């Protein structure tokens, strides 16, 4: 039985392209990650800016998005924006869903990027900001030249955690009918319920292999980049 179990399990890989499914997750993570980083930086700038209305807008966005389940945001983008409002980002069905999912992931994780950067800003000593001001830099130059470069270095570890969360959350787009690792796992288990444990461990291992290097890299990077004080 043991021999047969393994053979049957291996033969599954001929029928299902597991690597292609993981590749979709990596692409989702890549595009959503870049969008979230840009949007999150803007939000973080708004939240530390001297203008009260911008601070208010930034913190309202973060509060609202952080307390909403990602699943709702994805269903909202796919069923709501596409299904109800007819917003399409591509004539191709699959590409359209993919892009909507990328934006949904970015909208959600931008709030967490903003919080990570803010915690990075908090690692910058008061003296840095005071020194920047005393040599005559106003808010934006001070932020660009003095605060943010140090904040990004201090935020490497929390940003890495956001990236890890994003990798894992890219499976949630199954709720928006984007085919990727979690939906392939579901299909494979339904197709071969007898090797369910092996299938689950395969996919789990895939994510461990994606997540662990990111965790190790950001940990060592945050140590290397830490501003010596």
């Amino acid at each position, binding site marked *: 039985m043991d021999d047969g179990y393994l053979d049957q399990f291996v033969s599954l890989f001929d029928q299902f392209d597991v690597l292609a499914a993981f590749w979709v997750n990596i692409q989702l993570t890549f595009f959503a990650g870049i969008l979230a980083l840009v949007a999150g930086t803007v939000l973080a700038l708004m939240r*530390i800016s*001297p*203008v*009260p*209305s*911008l601070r208010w*807008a930034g913190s309202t966005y973060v*509060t*609202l998005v*952080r*307390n*909403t*389940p990602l*699943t*709702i*945001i994805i*269903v*909202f983008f796919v*069923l*709501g924006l596409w*299904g*109800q*409002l*007819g917003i399409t980002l591509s004539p191709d069905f699959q590409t359209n869903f993919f892009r909507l999912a990328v934006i949904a992931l970015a909208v959600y994780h931008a709030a967490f990027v903003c919080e990570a950067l803010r*915690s990075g800003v908090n690692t910058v000593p*008061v003296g840095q*900001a005071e020194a920047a*001001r005393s040599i005559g830099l106003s*808010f934006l130059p*001070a*932020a660009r030249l003095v*605060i943010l470069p140090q904040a990004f270095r201090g935020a490497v*570890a*929390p940003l890495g*955690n956001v990236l*890890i969360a994003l990798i*894992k959350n890219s*499976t*949630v787009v*199954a*709720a928006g009918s984007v085919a990727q690792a*979690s939906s392939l*796992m*579901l299909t494979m*288990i*339904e197709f071969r*319920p007898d090797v*369910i*444990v092996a299938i*689950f461990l395969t*996919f*789990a291992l895939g*994510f*461990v292999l994606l*997540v*662990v290097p*990111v*965790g*190790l890299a950001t*940990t060592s990077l945050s140590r290397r980049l830490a501003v010596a004080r």
Partner: protein
Amino acid sequence: MSVLFDVPGPRARRRMVWVNIAGAVVVAGIGVWVLARLGAKGQLDADLWKPFLTAGPWVNYLLPGLWATLKAAGISIVTASIFGLLFGLGRLSASRTIRVVSGTIVEFFRAVPVLLMMIFFWLGIAQLQIVAPADLPLVAVVLGLTFYNGSVFAELVRSGVHSLPKGQREAALAVGLRGSQSLRLVEVPQALIAMLPAIASQLVVILKDTALGVIVTYPELLDSARRLGAGLGNILQALLVAAAIYIVINYLVTRFAEYLAGRVGRRTAGRARAETPTLVVAKLDD
């Protein structure tokens, strides 16, 4: 106040008024554009929103959905706390074997997406036929949430104990407690108080992640909102109402935790830290 800028003087205040106006125009512009788009598609029709002012959708869909969400979250919080305490103590154990085993388990479950676990338990337990089919989705959701959040709790216990001043343990040993007693009676209780804000943000994560249950056919709030929307043809509105419910509940949980942290924070030698602890994945230190 922030140290990034001075207290605004008269010129800065005048400039700020203009920036405020510009910001308001941009926000209002986006708002008007969204409303215009919604209006053009007929999404603002009163018919689509009115059902939420009547009892029917609430009694038949949203409240049962909310109850299912709270039930799954409540059970998961209890089971995840037990899991977290057990494995957190395991990671702090004096035995190297126990440390490595619990460390591996905790790191594994933190690296695997919750959704994969839910799907696995959902289909796996169905095969074993030890749970009534009707309870299956709930069990799958609870197990998935337990293993993931329990692992996070275990990490919180561990990092909380490590963040305590060394004198706490030394004092416990000095009065004759054994190492395990010191952990149980002195260190872990203080660690939990110090980690209260982080624990609270994890409670919000549990509440939000119950929404993944929609994929394993658990009839929680998002699922009921979706069914309601499909029935009445107002899915956009139903999802917005469901999101609003989640936001209110999670906001209250966060606020309550902040209040609690402020109150009990004084009882510990460690500081009740406001920020979430660094969740360093795959750091198997022993």
